[in-house]
Every structure is written in C-alpha cells, then in structure tokens.
C-alpha cells in the first residue's frame, strides 16, 4: 500500500487507450482507458457485470472484437511474445478437476517452461501445503482458485491479471494473498486485480472504478477519499457515481 509510489516515475506496464469492446450487437466497454504502472497493485473495482472481466480478457488478448489500442510491456495485447510474460487467472478456477494439485502444476510448469523447484515455491505462496496429492475437484472452491492462481505464478510472469482472486476466501487467507500480491509488486511484478467488494480497494496502490462498461476513475485510494470527502471507500465510490449524475 505504498502511497509513496510516484506514478510519473514508473513506466506503464499496461496501457489501455480508449477501447471499445463489442459483444453481439451491443458494446460492453465504452472508450475505456487505464494505465497500470510497473511494480504496482492496481485494483479494478465495480459491480459484477460492469465489464471488469471483459476488460481483463482484452488485456490478456483473448477477447475478440476489441477496438482501440492496448499495450502490455510495450507490445500489443495478445502478442505471442507476451504469452510467457503475462499470467492470467480467470474468475472460475481454470484447472483440471480430475488431476491432483501437483499434476496440474507439473503440466502448467512444463507449458510455462518453469523448473520443478517453482512448483514447491508456488504451493508455498498460495498456502496449499499438504494438498499436493489431493484431486483438485475434491477441494473447496477457495482452494481450487488458489490452485488456479498457483498455476499462473509458475512462469514468474511480469504482469499478473487476476479476475476476482479472493472471492469466497477465508479472511485470513485473503489477507495472506494480499500480502503476497504486494510482495510480488515489490519485486517488480505488475498486478491488475479485480474485485466487486470495496473493502479490498484500500489494499491497492491504484484504483480503477468501473460501472456499466465505462471507466469512472483512474485514481488512488487517497485521492478518491480526498475527492469525495468520504473516509469509507464504499461511500466514496457511491459519491463518485452520484457526481457523475447517473
């Protein structure tokens, strides 16, 4: 939670410049822009259905019908060379339910060209010790999403895009994960983390507030509090929505 991070001095890891995304007949994102500086945790906040997942999919380059420019580490989103540099965790845990935890990790390690030692490291990072031989489908939802997160960490990506990684998790594990996110950011990783609960907003270096497919604010927790005059970020978000006159 380093308010000390000076954005002007940090190069951008992710730059989205006024993108529109069409799904079917309608646009789900309208002229969305954002900048995520290197080595920061940027929170993408907004109610479910506001377009967070679509925006994240566009950034990792799996979203079709994107109009506008997205650059990740200086390259257009979805470039082949980014595949080993960008880690992506979908909202639903995308791991093989019929494989054990370590079998899942061994497979994704091979694909990400990560060494065997990384498997033990990421198991440690997400706190899944003792679950290595459990079949992933038999784990709880929270444990499964941590297997999914661990799989994305294997390749030590420079950019991590995490779609609601803390949903349904025990508060203790949630706090641990946020510590992990900051540790990763301190080591130079750029994280974009979405959430629909505002109490996680305070954990982020930068805040992106989204609603109905539009970016309302690209700000920091401190600046949001100052702008709205509200200490509570939930109320601050409400104040921003009201000031937009919607």
């Amino acid at each position, binding site marked *: 939670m380093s308010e000390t991070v000076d954005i002007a001095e940090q190069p951008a890891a992710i730059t989205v410049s006024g993108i529109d995304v069409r799904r079917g007949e309608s646009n789900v994102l309208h002229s969305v822009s954002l900048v995520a500086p290197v080595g920061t945790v940027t929170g993408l906040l907004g109610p479910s259905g506001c377009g967070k997942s679509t925006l994240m999919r566009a950034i990792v380059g799996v979203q*079709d019908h994107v109009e506008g420019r997205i650059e990740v580490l200086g390259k257009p989103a*979805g470039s082949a060379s980014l595949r080993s540099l960008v880690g992506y965790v979908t909202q639903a845990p995308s791991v093989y339910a019929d*494989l054990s935890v370590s079998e899942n990790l061994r497979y994704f390690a091979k*694909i990400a060209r990560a060494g065997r030692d990384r498997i033990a490291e990421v198991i440690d990072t997400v706190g899944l010790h003792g679950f290595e031989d459990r079949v992933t489908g038999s784990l709880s939802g929270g444990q499964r999403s941590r297997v999914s997160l661990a799989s994305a960490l294997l390749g030590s990506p420079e950019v991590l895009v995490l779609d609601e990684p803390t949903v349904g998790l025990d508060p203790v594990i949630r706090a641990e994960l946020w510590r992990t996110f900051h540790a990763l950011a301190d080591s130079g990783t750029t994280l974009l983390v979405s959430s629909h609960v505002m109490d996680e907003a305070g954990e982020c270096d930068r805040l992106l507030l989204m609603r109905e497919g539009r970016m309302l604010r690209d700000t920091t927790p401190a600046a949001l509090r100052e702008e709205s005059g509200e200490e509570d970020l939930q109320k601050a978000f409400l104040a921003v929505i009201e000031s937009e006159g919607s």
Partner: protein
Amino acid sequence: MTPSATLATARRVLWQIRRDPRTIALLLVVPAALLTLLYFAFDGQQQVFQGIGAPLCGLFPFIIMFLITSIAMLRERTTGTLERLMTLPIGKADILFGYGIAFGLLAALQAIVVCGVGFFALGLDAAHGAWLVALLAIGNAVLGMALGLLASAFAQTEFQAVQFMPAFILPQLLLCGLFVPRDDMASLLDTVSYLMPLTYAYDALARVTSPAPLGSDFTIDVLAVIGITIAALALGAVTLRRRTP
C-alpha cells in the same frame, strides 16, 4: 509447436483418464463384450458374424474416441482451461497432437483387446492379418478423435455433445456398407455415403478381412482416411481460437 509441450499435453490427458478407472474399464471391455454378444446373436451363422464382426473390430475405436474427444475438448472449452492454455506459450498443434498421441495410445490398447478377442477367441478371420485390422483401428481412432475435436466446437453442453453420436456417427455406420452393401442401396444413399469418412474406414477394413487381394482401392481408402483426418485436424485447429467473443 514444441515436443515438450506436445508430450506434456499427451501425458496430462492420460493422467486425467487414469483418474477415471471406470472409463478405462469401459474402453477396454465394452467393445470386446459387444463383439461377444454379436457372436452369440449370430449363433451358427459364422458367415454373417464374420462379415459384420471382423470390420467392426476396427470401427469401435473410431466411435468411442469420437465420443470421448468431443466431451473432453468441450470440457476444456467450458471450464476455462483452454482459455488459459491460449494465454500460455503453447501452440495449437501441441494441444491437437497431444490429444492425438494420448488417444492413439488408448486406441491401440483397445484395438489389441478387441482384435485379440475377435480373431483368437471368437474365430473371426482377417485374411490379410489381424495386425492390419489393429493398425487400421488405431488410424480410425485418430480419425474419430479429429472429428470429435471439431464437433466439440459446435456443442455448448455435454448433452449436446453426446447427441452428436446418433446425429453424425449413426448415419455413417448405417450407410458405410457394414449392414447393407452400398451397391444395394438407393443410388442417392450410395452417393451420400461417398461423402462420409466412415465409408472409407469401413471399406479398408472389409478389404483386409476378406480374402480378395487388397488392390488399389485399399490404398485409396487408406489415403482418404489419412486425408480426412488431416483436414479435420486443420479445421479443428481453426476452432481453437486465441480470441473468443
């Protein structure tokens, strides 16, 4: 495409199957059991059993691998694992060939069991060698896999994927010549059967299991099966899209 990613994918698919011993048992036992059933159904009519049973040994793997692949690939699409793979440094060919190797191995086991039972225990005869039937069975399994992979792109749910079996496989089975010689069919159906992959798979098997010399038609059949497999894999690769709506 990298060999390590291809082999890792093949191993992963086999690990998944290994977790499911019931599927393995069904894979190995069902074709042989059905063949045995047919043997008793045609009790005393060895000629008829020979005509249907011998080629059928090489067709079972086609049917079963079609089903298994269409559902396995549908799961990859719906559970998000395919989307994850598409963000990782893995080629589409690694995924396709990974599945091909894994299911090819399973098909080989299945072919050995069903051919062993058919040609040694139940008295079926393959004039040009049971090993050739087994080899064609493996090729047909890869064909079934390639078509199943393609079919999975057109299903949204497992219910739909299962329906592809009666919708696409059963008509091919009925028209391929196994039950009625194609020459005896209405000419329209005979023409239609030329457009069906299974027709060539069956024709090759029928030639291998009957005493007449193989001839150039056999070569055409084999080339057709290989060609259709490659075309289906290429089309399947197109359906493995990095970007989806």
